């Protein structure tokens, strides 16, 4: 997933003098799942850009789960390669993700990117009716959904490679905003959030989006300056293999 995110940032970043060429770790199982944390609005934009980039630049099928309906899409967007789905509840989301293995979703080609926008919106509900859960236990819900996403991606990877041996793995990216997120320094965002700690077990890479308040940005007259931090066990494992 970091390869697609790197492509997005490279495409939409204004390179200043002295800045390094943006490079990310190669695609590997360690970097196939990424969690965006920080500003909800920016996360959603990054997810949409990632979906569009994956569909248009990389040429893969994307499935995009969100509670908030997309009001309008750019004319150039390849709608056929991006399937938008609007589950209203956690239960609906689990059911839709669980069905990704069924032939109706893997033909003619299985999705290579699974996007979930706004995990916090799904996790805020009580877990009533889900077998084996403690009602209202967000951490358990987070673990179940995250594990299902990762397991689904692993299965879809096998399907992709059975049809094309050199195919890239299926990637997963989701966004999550902790209560009280925002205004924190990058890398420290929501460090004490138990739900985020659970999500970190399954999403190997964390991409923290933080609004920068640097003097240089203000002096430069820039309206919007964002810092992006990539961290997590996936980054360390990927660098070990390069």
């Amino acid at each position, binding site marked *: 997933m970091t390869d697609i995110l790197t492509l997005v940032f490279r495409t939409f970043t*204004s390179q200043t003098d002295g800045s390094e060429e943006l490079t990310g770790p190669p695609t590997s199982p360690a970097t196939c799942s990424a969690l965006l944390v920080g500003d909800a609005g920016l996360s959603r934009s990054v997810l949409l850009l990632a979906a569009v980039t994956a569909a248009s630049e990389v040429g893969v099928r994307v499935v995009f789960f969100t509670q908030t309906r997309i009001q309008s899409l750019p004319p150039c967007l390849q709608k056929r390669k991006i399937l938008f789905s609007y589950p209203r509840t956690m239960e609906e989301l689990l059911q839709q993700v669980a069905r990704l*293995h069924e032939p109706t979703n893997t033909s003619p080609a299985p999705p290579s990117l699974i996007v979930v926008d706004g995990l916090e919106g799904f996790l805020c509900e009580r877990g009533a009716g889900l077998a084996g859960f403690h009602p209202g236990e967000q951490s358990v819900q987070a673990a179940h959904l995250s594990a299902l996403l990762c397991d689904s991606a692993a299965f879809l990877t096998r399907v992709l490679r059975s049809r094309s041996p050199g195919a890239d793995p299926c990637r997963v990216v989701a966004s999550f905003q902790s209560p009280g997120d925002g205004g924190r320094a990058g890398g420290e965002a929501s460090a004490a959030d138990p739900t985020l700690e659970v999500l970190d077990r399954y999403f190997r890479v964390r991409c923290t989006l933080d609004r920068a308040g640097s003097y240089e940005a203000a002096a430069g007259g820039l309206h919007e300056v964002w810092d992006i931090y990539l961290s997590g066990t996936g980054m360390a494992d990927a660098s070990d293999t390069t």
Partner: protein
Amino acid sequence: MLSISVSQCRTSTCMDVSQQQFNRCREESIQDTQQQSIVPDDLLIALKFVFGSCALQALDLVDHHSVTCLSSPSGRKAFQVIGGSGRLYTCFASCHYCPCPAFAYSVLRRNDGLLCKHLLAIYLCEAVGGTLQESVSDQQMSALLSGTAAP
């Protein structure tokens, strides 16, 4: 404008040690006269050392043939474990998750252990060839994976 920085955060992975034990189970378990797999004593001691009391509970599940691998026509797989209370727990094939209370409390909340006994039983059954096999429909598999199947 976007500025990028990469901070590498390494966390220890005890599963590397655990995986070594599972590999030894697969390689060193022997067949007795009744064609049942036997795990050598030193390996049992090692499992107890790594997983504590969870190891004995998991081995008990293995002895009772409590682990079933479910397969659907799409090729999707999942594991189903019969717990000590008779309750069925559906676990995933490629990552750690179990809907049991012990996983929620000991693993997720307290971070006391790597696995619950159900997940450990899956690993052990796979290692010694003790997993039962069962076929389900694609729709049944979806219901099981989402946790919405009837208990």
